[in-house]
């Protein structure tokens, strides 16, 4: 057990080194959410949610926090595993005595590190640029939301990796499978509204809005997010079931 942990830690360090070596990968992962944060955030400065004293940015910054978590845990991990499988690296790993759990554990630990860093940067820039900070006592909600978000979207990332059929389409498929949902979930627009009822019901069923609302709960007072928690738990279970059923070490 300790050996597996040591191997997983070593693998995680190796993955982090590789991640930062690939400039485009690291840049895209970090720059995309942070750029959106700054650009759209700037457009919302001085505005308030209709009929309230809540600043737009107070809702927008945690939404982008959720967005960053999804990019790092879902898009990055999912496309990375798809590429590793397509390139035959996963198969090669199976020729060694390295336990599968230690290898996947290393990949996940590296993903967690990247996700936490991106969340921290988003929070910091949101606070420095727009004065948005968690409400008093909001830290447990923030931490809990982060953990749940990482677990849920990393699981879904592993799941989507099994659906991707080529290395070239890995990034596009991962992005295309969640960006439209992120847009109609109002992640990029705090005042987004006016969806037909059937569509807003559908949006509520996906985990993107659920995670965004969990994060918003750490910045502004909201009712207890029972449905959002159930939503993420259900998606995690569904993702894990799919992974157990479809995950392959080679194409």
């Amino acid at each position, binding site marked *: 057990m300790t050996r597996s942990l040591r191997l997983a830690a070593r*693998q995680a360090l190796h993955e982090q080194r590789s991640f930062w070596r690939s400039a485009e990968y690291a840049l895209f992962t970090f720059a995309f959410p942070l750029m959106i944060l700054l650009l759209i955030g700037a457009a919302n400065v001085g505005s308030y949610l209709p009929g309230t004293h809540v600043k737009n940015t107070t809702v927008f910054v945690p939404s982008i926090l959720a967005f960053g978590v999804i990019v790092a845990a879902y898009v990055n991990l999912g496309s990375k595993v798809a590429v590793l499988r397509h390139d035959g690296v996963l198969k090669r790993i199976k020729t060694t*005595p390295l336990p599968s759990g230690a290898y996947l554990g290393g990949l996940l630990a590296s993903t967690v590190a990247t996700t936490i860093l991106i969340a921290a940067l988003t929070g910091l820039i949101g606070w420095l640029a727009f004065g948005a900070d968690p409400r008093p006592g909001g830290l447990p909600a923030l931490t809990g939301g982060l953990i749940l978000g990482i677990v849920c979207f990393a699981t879904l990332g592993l799941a989507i990796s099994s659906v991707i059929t080529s290395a070239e389409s890995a990034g596009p498929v991962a992005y295309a499978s969640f960006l439209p949902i992120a847009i109609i979930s109002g992640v990029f627009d705090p005042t987004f509204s006016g969806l037909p009822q059937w569509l807003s019901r559908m949006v509520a069923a996906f985990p993107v809005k659920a995670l965004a609302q969990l994060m918003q709960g750490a910045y502004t007072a909201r009712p207890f997010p029972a449905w959002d928690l159930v939503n993420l738990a259900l998606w995690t279970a569904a993702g894990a079931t799919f992974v157990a059923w479809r995950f392959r070490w080679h194409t």
Partner: protein
Amino acid sequence: MRVIDAVSPTVADGFAVHVRDLRMSYGSTEVLRGVDFDVRYGEVFCLLGPNGAGKTTTLEILEGFRSPSGGTVRVLGLDPATQAARLRERVGMVLQECGFPRQARVAELIDIWRSYYPNPRPLGELLDVVELAEVRNAQVRKLSGGQRRRLDFALALAGDPDLVFLDEPTTGFDPEARRRCWAAIENLRRLGSTILLTTHYLDEAERLADRIAILRAGRIELAGTTQEVAARAGLATRISFTTPSALRQGQVAVPDGIDLAVRGPVSVCHTDNAAMTLRRLLDWALENRLGDLDGLAVSAPSLEDTYLQLTGPDPETM
């Protein structure tokens, strides 16, 4: 699925690889139809055969990636189907078409691979064996095809394996890359590793292997040393010489009792009694004033002749 019968450990343990009556079916297609062979410790054993003969399937069963439909398999005394984890620590594998992580560098990748094994071989030694020391800090994606294959070897050797599987190690390589690959395999063997390699190249088998088994359509057609395989195929000795112009122009008839084929500039015959045929040929040349027969050559049946006879669809193309 057939019951895999127990083997007496003394028999199976005497060999690095022990295969008896190995069978494999995908649906109704029989890929392996009772394969038998043994690989001794310390030797280079070559499974030779055309594409689709079942080489890779056999290897994947030995590696524990597939469970056979029937038969007995022991690798280093272990059953790969049930003891794959223990086997992985002692076996190195070079599979067809396995990639590398895209951002990795040569020495760094070998190093992380070493960490997967309980008793890894030193990094410097690995780089030397596969002749990659001078590109140790290069990015893997910038390596040539031959260098990548040698990096495959280095990763397979990282755990200091007792047995190495090489699945078609030089397919698609240019002559220089093949030569360096072969050098790496010869280095490997000098380190005392037992090697089981598959190939559809004859020169590769002839150059590297101590013993050869020819696999064709799911069965071992012939097995033994290179010479044994050639001899056991029952092929005749080949005698050839430059066709004299008189023979070519029809001024001289072909000798009686000799099955001589005039193929343009070269004349060839096959015989089971080389001495007698040669005497008759020279007598015939003397009678017809053809001199000493330019380019006269007598060659024992080669592995290539054997192989082509076994696997070629048309004997006339020999």
